């Protein structure tokens, strides 16, 4: 029962100062307005449930799933509460009580169980994105492709692999053995399959012999780097890097060189899982600054104060209109910079920001940083 489970976080519930610093910065609260949609409101709802003043119902479930888990709330919390853990724990307890998740999230979990990917695609076609690109199963580096790049955004997978292979490294991919990282399951409170997924992915990645695992998806990056170790029960036998971190290192060492200029103004959106969650703000910017011709113009809200794109935490699948509205706020901010390119480095951000650009008829193009690197290296010829 949720009410009993809340005893585990009782001290946090009473520690919440109700100062609303979180609500003032929450992208969902900005859209919906009502107190119940803000982090402070959710903490108060938990207190009411704990004290048996109210019982969990569909409205409360709705409020706990109306969250991108961007972690802006946690960054500004008056009393340093680990709010993302709280949101994800509560979601998992709603699942335990058969109240959560949202219907669409259940379908994703089923797909992961049956096909090892979130899109109901054939596991056997996990490598289909590669086309003519030659793939290895062993290497010093393992490229963890991710479900979205494998099936829905294959250009990103190709671009990532082209750049990695151009750096003369042995790059391994897992093919059919690459299972969904489990990010969506963890974010939506569906923890039943997660131990099996983690153990499988860690073992298969280890089997490649890779010292470094590179991801082009910030959700996979955050999940493997931060969520896996406690579930796996040990330190991971490899280092996990987002592709922007890896490429920034290669630029710094002089190994990655650009052959072409991109004479455009670009602004950069910090994906929450890379920035707010992992504290990596500099590597993507270092790449953009290094590309000849590109002029980086920052938005008002960046780095720790960055606004979420709206797609995280299962919100894009569960409440697409709300996710799009949040994305439009970010796109408006990007437009104000006068940039022609809105760059980011996460497939989820790419999807939502691209749709927000289209919905708002903005004169902006959304590009992944890896695509810009490919272009500036002359690899897309």
């Amino acid at each position, binding site marked *: 029962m949720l009410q009993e489970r809340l005893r585990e976080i009782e*001290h946090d519930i*009473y*520690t919440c*100062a*109700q*100062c*609303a*610093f979180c*609500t*003032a*910065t929450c992208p969902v609260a900005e859209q919906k*307005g*009502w*107190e*119940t949609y803000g982090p402070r*409101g959710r903490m*108060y*709802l938990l207190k*009411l449930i704990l004290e048996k*003043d*109210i019982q969990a119902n569909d*409205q*409360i479930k709705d*409020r706990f799933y109306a969250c991108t888990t961007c972690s802006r709330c946690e960054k*500004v919390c*008056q*009393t*340093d509460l680990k709010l993302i853990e709280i949101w994800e724990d509560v979601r998992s307890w709603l699942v335990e009580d058969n109240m959560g998740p949202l219907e669409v999230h259940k379908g994703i979990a089923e797909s992961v169980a049956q096909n090892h990917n979130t899109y109901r695609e054939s596991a056997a076609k996990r490598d289909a994105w590669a086309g003519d690109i030659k793939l290895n199963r062993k290497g010093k580096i393992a490229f963890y492709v991710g479900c979205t790049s494998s099936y829905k955004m294959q250009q990103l997978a190709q671009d990532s692999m082209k750049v990695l292979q151009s750096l003369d490294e042995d790059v391994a991919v897992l093919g059919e053995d690459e299972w969904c990282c489990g990010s969506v399951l963890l974010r939506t409170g569906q923890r039943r399959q997660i131990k099996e997924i983690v153990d499988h992915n860690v073992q298969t990645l280890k089997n490649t012999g890779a010292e470094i695992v590179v991801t082009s998806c910030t959700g996979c990056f955050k999940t493997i780097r931060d969520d896996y170790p406690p579930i796996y029960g040990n330190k991971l036998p490899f280092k996990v890097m987002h592709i922007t971190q890896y490429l920034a290192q290669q630029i710094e060492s002089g190994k990655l060189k650009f052959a072409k200029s991109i004479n455009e103004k670009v602004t950069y959106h910090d994906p929450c899982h890379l920035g707010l969650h992992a504290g990596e703000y500099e590597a993507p910017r270092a790449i953009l600054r290094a590309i000849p011709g590109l002029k980086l113009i920052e938005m*008002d809200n960046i780095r720790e104060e960055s606004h979420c794109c709206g797609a995280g935490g299962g919100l894009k699948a569960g409440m697409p209109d709300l996710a799009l509205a949040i994305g439009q706020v970010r796109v408006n901010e990007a437009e104000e910079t006068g940039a022609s390119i809105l760059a980011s480095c996460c497939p989820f951000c790419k999807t939502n920001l691209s749709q927000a650009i289209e919905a708002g008829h903005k004169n902006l193009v959304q590009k992944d940083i890896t695509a810009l690197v490919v272009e500036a290296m002359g690899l897309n010829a």
Partner: protein
Amino acid sequence: MNKALEQQLVELLGPDSVSMTDIERRLYAHDMAPVPKILGLVWKFMPDAVVRPSSVKQLQQLMKFAHENSIPVVPRGRSTTMMGGAYPIYGGISIDMTARRGIIELDESAGTIKVKAGTYWEAVLKFLEKRGLTLYCYPTSAPSSTIGGWIGNGGVGLGKGGLGIGSSKYGYAADTVVDLGVVLPTGEYLESIEATELKAEDFIGSDGVLGIMDTITLKIHKLPARQEPFCYDFKDFDKLCSAVAEIALLKPFFLLIEDKVMLDFKKLAKLHVPMAQNLLTVILAGDDEAQFKLDIQTMGKIISAYGGQELSKEIAKEEWQGRYYAMRHKSAGPNLLGGEFCVPTSNFKESIRRVKKLGVAKNIQIAIHGTLGVNEVLVMPQVLSDERKKFRYLTMMSLVKELNDLSIKLGGIPYGVGLFNAFYAKEIHGAKLAELIRLKKSLDPRNIMNPGKATHCSTRFRITLPKFAYGMGMRGLGLFVKHGG
């Protein structure tokens, strides 16, 4: 409100602007301070409906509706005070003003900025700072406090309002306000209060009992040429208090006091704290470099004279950056209970002596958090408490009254009015209380605007609670607060 009125309200404002769900109404029935449930017998905190008007037109429609049907309305910013001013006591309609947010006009030549009432202070600050400008003063809850919420808050009384960051140099909240746009209880809209017979000062610090502030025009100025934080450690808190009285004459931009017990509370909450006994943080700001240097010299002499030791610039910067986080140590409680009062700067030292004496008598650790005001120090004595220990928590509330009374004896006043300090309306509003009562009768004949507060403390049965009854009740509860526990 009956079903028919609820239906009318939805038709009037549209379903997106009205909520009557149980969970929503519960969230508009409180502010930052946990109130024991038993007090629900005395006051009806739950609104019947919550509305989020997004235009002046909607606000006017709402007020006409409420006026015609004599429904109580309570304007609410983000409800970040602890005095009960922003939630109902008779039920009625809670008006969430946060949909009315945004900057209307920046007029650099006039040195003003006009904003909607539901805009956050920090949002305005950031907007101005990007342009090399800033506000004269703003609340320590700036990240979530709304402009209208703080300007309306009782603070140190009608016509003055709140004390905040910048007050020690530039004055009260009222000193920073140029004009207001107000929707009166009848629904009439006064776009510029200064163009009428009324004045902005009539509404500042009135706890929203006269009308709803919709727009506020604030004074602005250029960012100071130089601003620098300083932090000092004092072994002797008495001497720190003496130093504060002298540093106040330099008109620093901000001055923060934290005693040893406060630092101990922070350690209990596993926070990193400087190696210090009692902390004094001072922010100097100014445009005249020669004067700035002179002020630093003078302050250095004062600090030396009272045995203070300067701490590193890193510590000073951390203290300044943490200015919005006065409750960071709350997990040590997990509740903090205490008072908030102002005393003349000259009596600050004596007030602390008496607070500490009270703590000894009751065998409780009282921490001191203080900030410099205009001619006063705003003191927030705090004790660790736990609302889950219901009877103990209730009895500990008696401490608030004792702290308030202590401040009055020293020429001070409790800070903020709202509901729970309305017993002190006479002391806080002073001579202006009569004016507030007169305006209330004249502008709000049906007594629908945040009724039962600010000028007196009413119950859900519309019976005014006499101060002596409050005193007796609190004294009775206080009898149980002995020997810690």
